[in-house]
């Protein structure tokens, strides 16, 4: 028998995990950035102080990068509150998570640590180890110049030596490059020298990474079209996706393989296109989304049986200026992923439109009526993707789900799960539809299978012990996995 304190603890931690999955401290449709940050900061402080081991363990879950960085920072800032054993466990988790974070995010974290004057021995060791594991220090020096400079200065890193004697920059070239670039007339490392030459030689900038070259291109007044075409081979996968529309506008050729893109990113890209473009490129876009969904589904493809989905495309899925159409993109990505997972898939958009590819945020949220329609299809699983603002009429969705659970389907023939892409700053949680239906936060549709697993805890009946076991399990997997995704893939 679980004590009520344990139930509360489990609930608190889950609340935090779902918040950490969804919130990015940016403006949402219903709340401003400030509210989101304030609310999130409180949650972080609350969970860190009360459940420190669980707080650290949540680094192993699919929480978003913003919150991962906040947790790392929180743990390092308050290292004194942890026991030696806890600190060791935290250190491993932090190192593993940092290796998975995108480099700009890590450099920003180091800068925040410097601003917060966190400079204990452990922090310095973490910075040192992370930098030592970077595949190409010269690339970092060029691409994240300010970040690397700040990290090196903060952690007292000797940039000369200690980095393998066979390297050319072993003689302090990297240090000179960052702190005194005028000291040398030329650099032995090709990338560093390209950076030096790019100041006056247009051809040299095409040897640099895209983001750095972009600045030089503007300085040299190079036309956008010519620049994009020549720099294309130096772009990363996501950079290619990002400049697609810019390239199209300038009629530049930037080849990309849409099929290889991550599912939710791809959905965001599709929603950024005009409806005419989407209709004209229907086959290409649908094909790419399906391929991405199949890749994400992997071995689970086609194993979910009869799946119904209620997907929100009401006006509130516009998101905000910072998160443009993010909730709708998540819903669209879930749509294609569920299509791949299911044997028989029955989607329902709240607007009543059928064509998922041409989805756009419009109209109210009649979730209740759509749920009724979806339940009439007698699915084995029902997945709801919505921000939980049910307003036509308000509260009907909750009533339908409650009565369905208590009166019509008490033996759980249909499993229902609600995925919510928006963190509600006022409630310190993602908005729920009904107590009887588990709600989980979702950011990337790719995490959907894991979230459905996590959502079973959110029914409020599982205790702390079970949750702890689940977390331990995830932590073990997390630490065992190879961190092969680190670094920039060109």
């Amino acid at each position: 028998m679980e004590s009520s304190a344990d139930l509360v603890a489990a609930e608190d931690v889950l609340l935090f995990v779902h918040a950490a999955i969804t919130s990015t401290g940016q403006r949402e449709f219903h709340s401003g950035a400030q509210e989101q940050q304030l609310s999130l900061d409180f949650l972080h402080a609350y969970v860190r102080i009360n459940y420190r081991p669980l707080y650290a363990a949540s680094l192993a879950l699919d929480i978003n990068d913003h919150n991962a960085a906040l947790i790392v920072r929180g743990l390092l800032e308050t290292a004194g509150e942890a026991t030696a054993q806890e600190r060791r466990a935290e250190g491993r988790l932090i190192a593993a998570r940092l290796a998975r974070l995108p480099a700009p995010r890590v450099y920003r974290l180091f800068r925040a640590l410097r601003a917060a004057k966190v400079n204990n021995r452990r922090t310095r060791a973490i910075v040192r180890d992370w930098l030592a594991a970077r595949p190409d220090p010269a690339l970092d020096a060029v691409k994240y110049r300010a970040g690397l400079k700040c990290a090196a200065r903060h952690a007292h890193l000797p940039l000369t030596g200690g980095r393998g004697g066979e390297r050319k920059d072993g003689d302090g070239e990297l240090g000179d490059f960052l702190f005194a670039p005028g000291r040398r007339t030329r650099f032995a490392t090709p990338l560093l020298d390209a950076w030096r030459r790019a100041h006056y030689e247009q051809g040299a900038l095409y040897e640099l990474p895209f983001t750095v070259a972009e600045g030089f291109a503007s300085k040299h007044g190079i036309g956008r079209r010519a620049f994009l075409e020549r720099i294309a081979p130096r772009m990363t996968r996501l950079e290619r996706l990002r400049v697609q529309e810019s390239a199209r506008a300038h009629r530049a050729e930037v080849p990309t393989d849409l099929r290889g893109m991550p599912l939710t990113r791809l959905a965001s890209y599709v929603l950024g296109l005009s409806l005419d473009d989407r209709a004209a490129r229907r086959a290409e876009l649908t094909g790419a989304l399906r391929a991405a969904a199949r890749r994400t589904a992997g071995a689970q493809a086609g194993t979910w049986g009869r799946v119904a989905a209620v997907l929100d495309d009401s006006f509130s899925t516009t998101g905000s200026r910072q998160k443009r159409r993010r909730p709708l993109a998540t819903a669209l990505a879930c749509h294609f992923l569920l299509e791949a997972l299911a044997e028989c898939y029955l989607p329902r958009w709240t607007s009543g439109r059928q064509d998922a590819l041409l989805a756009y945020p419009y109209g109210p949220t009649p979730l209740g009526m759509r749920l009724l329609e979806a339940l009439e299809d007698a699915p084995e699983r029902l997945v709801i993707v919505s921000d939980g603002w049910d307003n036509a009429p308000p509260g009907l969705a909750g009533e339908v789900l409650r009565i369905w659970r208590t009166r019509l389907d008490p033996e759980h023939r249909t499993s229902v799960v609600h995925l919510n892409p928006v963190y509600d700053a006022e409630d310190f949680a993602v908005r729920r539809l009904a107590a009887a239906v588990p709600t989980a936060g979702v950011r990337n549709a790719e995490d959907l299978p894991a979230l459905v697993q996590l959502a079973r805890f959110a029914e409020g009946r599982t205790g702390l012990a079970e949750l702890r076991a689940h977390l331990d399990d995830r932590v073990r997997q997390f630490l065992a996995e190879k961190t092969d995704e680190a670094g920039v893939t060109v």
Partner: protein
Amino acid sequence: MSRLDLSGLTVRPAQVWGAVRLVPLVRAEPVAGLRLHRELYEDGPATVRADGRTTYSTTYLPHGFVADWTGDGSPAAAYGSQLTEGRGPVACAPLHFPRKLAQKRRGKGRPSGGSSGSLRFLPLHLALDGYLALHFGGPSIVWEEWTRRAVYEGLTPRAERAYRGEAVPGLDDALRVFEIHPEQCGVLLYVADALAAAFVVPHPDDYRALHASLLQDLYGELLYHYALYGGPVPEFTTRITAEYINSLAQLRSAAERRQQEWADQHAGLMAGELLDESYDVREVYRMGRFRLSRFLPPFALHRTQHIGETITDEKGRVVYLKTFRLSEKQVRRGHVLHRLAAHEWHLGRTAEAMGITVEELARRIRRLGFEGLLKQHA
């Protein structure tokens, strides 16, 4: 005296944000033959001229409406193209003379041969001017109590204060997060559950274009305070009794019943003060089969009342509507003016009819801000 006929418009569930409750009104079919759109005037003070020669005053005009109509009832969507025409600031937008409040637009791409055209007017000013110029002419019989000014100049100029929508706390967010229904043609705006304004247009596209204009409308001081101090209003969430539900079909019919109940309750409980009142409607302008008119409430004391302007079709159904809620004091002013006019501005007889003394009536007239109209000894 007649009532507002909102037939053809159905109520959908309200959306709540803080103290603001917005009730969408939906038309199954848009009204053919009339379109409204908005004309944005350049921000900042604009000079008002009556005829190009005389400049009367400088005023702030946030926006105006343009009504396009076709005489034969054919769809008027074609004139929507005027929306995209580049328009300069409007040189001529008379405010001060009731006869010029609605002004026909001259030479603006009117199709030849059809009995159609467009009319420009300033939203709510029509209604407000009707109220401000109430018994504008002043006394028709010269009783000795009345000052020379009242006799020669009437009651004007009168002034009332109002708040712009942007000043009403929380209204901007409420309008921003409101999810417009696809066929929505109107909205009832409640602040702390007091009806602040009703707004109806003929076509859903017009509504989408004009939704944000609610932020630039006028609201009474009372509503400003309600929005400032009135806490968040509760959402009327649907409740269904589980005991009698045995199948999905029953659940669906129960859900549909709730929707109907809400519509009925809303008409009776919440919008009753607007819909049940009978109004004194005065026609301002005729355009084809439509009439632009303004309406005044009976100015009964201690009752919430609204003034407004409306466009009705030949059957008297409301095609366009905009209302302004009067404050208690504004109702009292209208009431006293009404009673005075009814008794030919004779203080003694009016006081007798109202069951008070002449001194009391004179005191009331002064308290209501009409002091200048009375001679000192009265």
